[in-house]
């Protein structure tokens, strides 16, 4: 990456970011921060653009993977948990696995720790990392990316977790500058390794701020811009998941999705009403309505103390 490219804005529309960087057949990392800051807006744009045959990677997925599977965009899932965190099972995931509806999918079961290690290995540039976890489990027997080996430094047996390098990571953040330097706070999950492990990174930000704002607090720059391919400004882009400092979790939206997705026909109606039949994210937010958004907005701000970088 040259100095010159650093000075060029990477700010693009969500439509353009997905169109350029997430072709069909991609391996896509989503949901790196677990139940907060899930990139729903970006995932829904992937569905609107009709991408197919995707491999989804993520430790857990709070309804997002279920929606993408139900929409027929997914061929394979590499994950530790696929469902709806506050409501229970994922109905589209079940239909795909049990009945091959709308299509069959390959499920590569991980544990949270082993998936995090797979991304960490890629972030470190090594082919695998060792762990004691997963020993004795059926997951170990069925996941070819987890292999037993004899430790070279003592008499133990360990599990080698093969490095996993997604084609693109889509990460929702609180704020970024136009070059992709991103501030992110709250629980980080696998976002740090996910950004470094992936070949490309798309940043979706609640706010675009001047580079000076980001540079004022480099400890909070979890993702440096030189790793980033595209920056998208998409306020409310993680709804119905929460973004600390911006909005809370829309529990009812998850509950409604859970009910409506119980049947394939119900899911199709949901998908048309909230994704395929709306005019992009603008249409989605209009459908949600201002009063509902207002009810989710921050009630009471809680700012951290400023850190002094002076010397």
């Amino acid at each position, binding site marked *: 990456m040259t100095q010159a490219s650093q000075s060029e804005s990477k700010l693009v529309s969500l439509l353009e970011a997905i169109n350029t960087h997430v072709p069909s057949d991609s391996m896509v990392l989503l949901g790196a921060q677990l139940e907060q800051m899930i990139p729903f807006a970006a995932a829904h744009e992937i569905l609107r653009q009709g991408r197919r045959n995707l491999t989804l990677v993520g430790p857990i997925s709070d309804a997002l993977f279920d929606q993408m599977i139900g929409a027929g965009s997914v061929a394979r899932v590499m994950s530790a948990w696929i469902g709806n965190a506050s409501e229970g*099972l994922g109905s589209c995931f079940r239909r795909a696995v049990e009945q091959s509806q709308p299509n069959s999918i390959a499920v590569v079961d991980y*544990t949270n720790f*082993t998936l995090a290690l797979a991304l960490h290995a890629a972030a470190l540039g090594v082919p695998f990392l060792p762990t*004691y976890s997963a020993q004795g489990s059926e997951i170990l027997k069925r996941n070819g990316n987890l292999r037993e080996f004899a430790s070279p430094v003592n008499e133990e047996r360990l599990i080698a977790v093969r490095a996993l390098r997604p084609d693109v990571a889509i990460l929702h953040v609180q704020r970024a500058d136009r070059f992709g330097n991103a501030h992110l706070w709250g629980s980080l999950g696998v976002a740090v390794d996910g950004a470094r492990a992936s070949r490309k990174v798309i940043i979706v930000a609640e706010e675009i701020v001047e580079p000076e704002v980001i540079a004022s607090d480099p400890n909070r720059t979890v993702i440096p811009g030189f790793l980033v391919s595209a920056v998208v400004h998409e306020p409310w882009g993680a709804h119905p998941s929460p973004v600390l400092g911006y909005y809370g979790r829309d529990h009812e939206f998850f509950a409604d999705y859970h009910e409506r997705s119980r049947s394939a026909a119900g899911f199709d109606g949901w998908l048309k009403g909230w994704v395929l039949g709306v005019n992009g994210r603008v249409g989605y937010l209009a459908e949600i309505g201002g009063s509902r958004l207002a009810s989710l907005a921050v009630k009471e701000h809680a700012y951290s103390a400023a850190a002094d970088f002076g010397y």
Partner: protein
Amino acid sequence: MMVVAAAREIRDAELVFVGMRLPMLAFALAKRTHAPRAVALFENGVAREAPAAEMLRTMGDPANLRGATFCGTMLDVMGLLQQGRVQVGFLGAGEVDRFGNLNTTWGRRGSATIRLPGSGGGCDIACLAQRVVVLISHERSRLVERVEFLTSPGFGSGNGWRRAQGLPLNSGPSAIVTTKGVLRFGGDGEAFLASVHPGVSVEDVLDSTGWSVRVADNVAETPPPTEDEFAAIRTLDPDSFWTAA
């Protein structure tokens, strides 16, 4: 009662790996009663000493992040777990068997086999926490002779199995807390009935368990919730969203 019995498995000042749903409530209850210095770890990378100000639907709710002791990465907390520094971890399951093995991958609903969400961090906690406490509704179809799919290892097929697999010393299941009682584990790795909850008979437990479960000679009644425990649950879950059952 299940939440109360689960909370009592936490000792003061312990590091506790908290899963989603009922374990969150059990931890909050323990903090407000007998274990005020316990520290909760969440797999999204959060450590918490102060209980969250409101009941959580997920570990990523803003109320679980604001006021946290620490917000880091998943590997930060999984590293503590793998070092053996986490004393107790809570897990739910579709099925648990007589050796404390858990299945959260494939379930049964009537005659149908259904796909469950999977391990999450469950297998990691089952492998690496010093003590694992399983929370499960007490039904014959869920407390089974042998799990259909071993997602998260307990004592495998009995004593010695965990070491043979390469799992750490000083790890493994400690208790199965159900809607009817508490099961603990003998030196042979097999679960036995240690106590029944108030109003539940030993016969009821035997009828509701999918294997001929051994009963402790001194099987007791689980002490009923104290005033303090009742009051804390009413505060934590005022709408009975989690404790209705």
